[in-house]
C-alpha cells in the first residue's frame, strides 16, 4: 500500500511536468513570501525533502517549507528562473547551468551536499541472481546482453527498466556505470523511481535501478566494482565506507549565499536532527569526515 501511494505520488509529479508544459501551473510561481521556503527538484529526494520539511515545521511554528518534485533538472530550471529558493538535485550541477544562473540572476551558485544515496540495482524476487559487477551492468544496459542466462541460472529474456532522461539518477548511472555510452534503445524509461520499482516487482524478466529508499517488493542485488572484486550490498556501512561502488551525494543548490529562513533550514538539515532523518527514510547521512573536510 505504501508502495502504491508513493507510485501515485510520482505520477502526480509527472502530471505536474505535463501541467508546466502547458503552462497550467501558474500557482507554483508563488514563493518566498517572508517565512515560506520553497524547495523543488529531484524526484529521488522528494521523500527526504518532505520529511525534513515536516520535522522542521513541527519544530519551528510559523515557517512554511514547500517541497515539490519534478526532477533535478526541473528544480535547477526553477532556480535559474527564480521560482524556488532551493533546488534539490541528485546530480551535481553542470558548469553550463551554473553559468546560466550567474548570467540570469547575477549570483554564484552555492552547492551544499545534504545526504548520501546508494543507487540500488533491483530484480524480480523470483530471480536467483545475487550479484553483478559494473561491467556486467554496463553490458546489460547498453543492450549487449539480452538474456538472463548469460549472467545467472535463469531462463528468461532480459527487460531493462530505467528512468527518464530528466532524472539525476539517469545521468549518474549513464556516467558512472555506462561510462557515458548510450542506453540501449529498448530500455524502458519510466517517470519516477517508484514506477521503476513497481514495474520490476511485476515483471520476472526485469532489471531496474534507482534510489535505495524506494526498494520494496523487489530484490536488491549486490554490486562489485569489477569482476575480481567482492560484491557489496548497498547497506549503511558499505555505502558510508565507499565499498559499495555506486553511491552519490545528494545536493541542495541556492543562488548566492543563503540567508534568513533558508539559511536556518539548511543549517538544521546539516545538523544532528536533519542528518538523522536521512537514515530514517532510507538514505545515508553525510560522512562526518567529509563534511568536516569541506569546512
Amino acid at each position, binding site marked *: 500500500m505504501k508502495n502504491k501511494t508513493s507510485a*501515485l505520488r510520482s*505520477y*502526480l509529479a*509527472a*502530471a505536474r*511536468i*505535463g501541467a*508546466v*508544459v502547458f503552462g497550467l501551473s501558474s500557482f507554483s510561481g508563488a514563493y518566498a513570501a517572508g517565512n515560506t521556503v520553497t524547495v523543488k527538484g529531484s524526484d529521488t529526494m522528494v521523500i527526504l525533502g518532505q520529511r525534513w520539511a515536516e520535522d522542521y515545521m513541527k519544530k519551528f511554528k510559523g515557517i512554511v517549507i514547500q517541497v515539490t518534485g*519534478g*526532477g*533535478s*533538472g*526541473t528544480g535547477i*530550471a526553477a532556480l*535559474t528562473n527564480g521560482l524556488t529558493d532551493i533546488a534539490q538535485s541528485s546530480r551535481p550541477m*553542470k558548469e*553550463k*547551468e551554473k553559468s*546560466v544562473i550567474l548570467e540570469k540572476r547575477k549570483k554564484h551558485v552555492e552547492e551544499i551536499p545534504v545526504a548520501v544515496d546508494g543507487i540500488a540495482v533491483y530484480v524480480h524476487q523470483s530471480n536467483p541472481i545475487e550479484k553483478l559487477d559494473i561491467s556486467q551492468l554496463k553490458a546489460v544496459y547498453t543492450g549487449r546482453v539480452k538474456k538472463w542466462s548469460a549472467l545467472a541460472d535463469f531462463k528468461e*529474456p532480459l*527487460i531493462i527498466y530505467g528512468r*527518464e*532522461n*530528466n*532524472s539525476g539518477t*539517469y*545521468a549518474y548511472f*549513464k556516467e558512472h556505470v555506462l561510462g*557515458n555510452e*548510450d*542506453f540501449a*534503445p*529498448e*530500455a*524502458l*524509461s*519510466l*517517470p519516477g523511481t517508484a*514506477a521503476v520499482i*513497481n*514495474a520490476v516487482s*511485476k*515483471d520476472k*524478466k*526485469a532489471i531496474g535501478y534507482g534510489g535505495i529508499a524506494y526498494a520494496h517488493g523487489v530484490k536488491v542485488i549486490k554490486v562489485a566494482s569489477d569482476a575480481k572484486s567482492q560484491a557489496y550490498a548497498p547497506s549503511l556501512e558499505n555505502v558510508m565506507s565507499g565499498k559499495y561502488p555506486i553511491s552519490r551525494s545528494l545536493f541542495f543548490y541556492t543562488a548566492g549565499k543563503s540567508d534568513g529562513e533558508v539559511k536556518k533550514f539548511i543549517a538544521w538539515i546539516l545538523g544532528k536532527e536533519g542528518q538523522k532523518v536521512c537514515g530514517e527514510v532510507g538514505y545515508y547521512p553525510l560522512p562526518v569526515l567529509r563534511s568536516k573536510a569541506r569546512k
Partner: protein
Amino acid sequence: MRRKGFENAVELVILASAMTAIAGLFLIFIFIGKEALPVFFSPEIRDEAGLSKLFLAQAGPHPFSWQPVSLVPKYSVLTLFAGTLKATLVAIIFAAPLALGAALFTAEFAPDWLKEIIKPVIEILAGIPSIVLGFFALMVMATFVQDAFGTLYRLNALVAGIALGIAVIPVIYTVAEDALSGVPYSYKEASIALGATRWQTASRIVFPAALPGILAACILGFGRCIGETMIVLMASGNAPLMTWILDSPIRTVSATVAAELGEVVVGSGHYHVLFFLGTLLFVFTFAINLFAHWFVKRLQKKILGIT
C-alpha cells in the same frame, strides 16, 4: 437609446471573449513555433539537430535513435512519430468498433429508458482524467495483456493503445451518435414501408447516410489520441523503438515533450527540437480537427438539402 448602448456593450464583451480564444490559439502557435525556428535557421543548432538528423537514418548501429542526453545527441523525430502513430492506430482499431456499435445501438435500437442510461454513462467516461486511465493501464491492464497475449514487454504499444482507445470511445461515440440521430426520419420510414427489417434499415440506410459524420468521429478520435500524453507516458514503456512489432514498447511525441521539457537546458539543441515536436503536434491535431469539422459541416448541408 440607453438600451441600444447597453446592447452594444454586451455585444462587444461577447465579441471580445470570442476573440480571446482565437487570439490564444494564435499566440500559442506563435510562441511554440518561434522556439522551433532555430531548428531551421540557427547554424549551430542545425549542426546538432538539423532536419536531416531529425528525419533521416543515421550511421551507427541504431539508425533511428532518440538519445538526446548523450555525448553525441541523437534526435530521430521519426521514431517518435512512428510510436505515436502505432499507439493511435491500435486505439482507433480498438475503440471505433465499440463506439460505433454503441452509437448505432443507442440511435436505432435501444428503447428510450436504456438510451437514457447508456448515453450519460459513456459521456461520463470522457470525464475520467487520463492520469487515472494511465494508472489503471499500468497497474492492471498491463498485467492482464501480458498474461493474455504472452507479450515480451509488460508495457508496450498494445497496452497504451487499448488505454488510449478507452479514452477516445466517448469522443467517437458522441459524434457518431449525433450523426446517426441526424439522419432524417423520412429515410427510415421509407425503408420500413418497403418492408426492410430494422437491422436492414440501420445497416443499409441509416449507417451509410451518416457515414461522413462517422468518419469525422473517427478522425476526431484520431486527433485526440495523437495529443494524449499521460496515458502513453505511463503505459507505453517510453523506449524509442521503431519496429512493426505490435507489442514492442514505444516512445510517443507527446510523452517525450512532457518528460523532457522540464529538464532541458534552455536554448540548447534539445530544447529547440522539443519545441519543434510541439509545433508539429500542434499543426497535426489542428489540421485533423479542422478537417473533421469541415466533414461534419458538409454532412449537415447534405442532409438538410442546402447545397
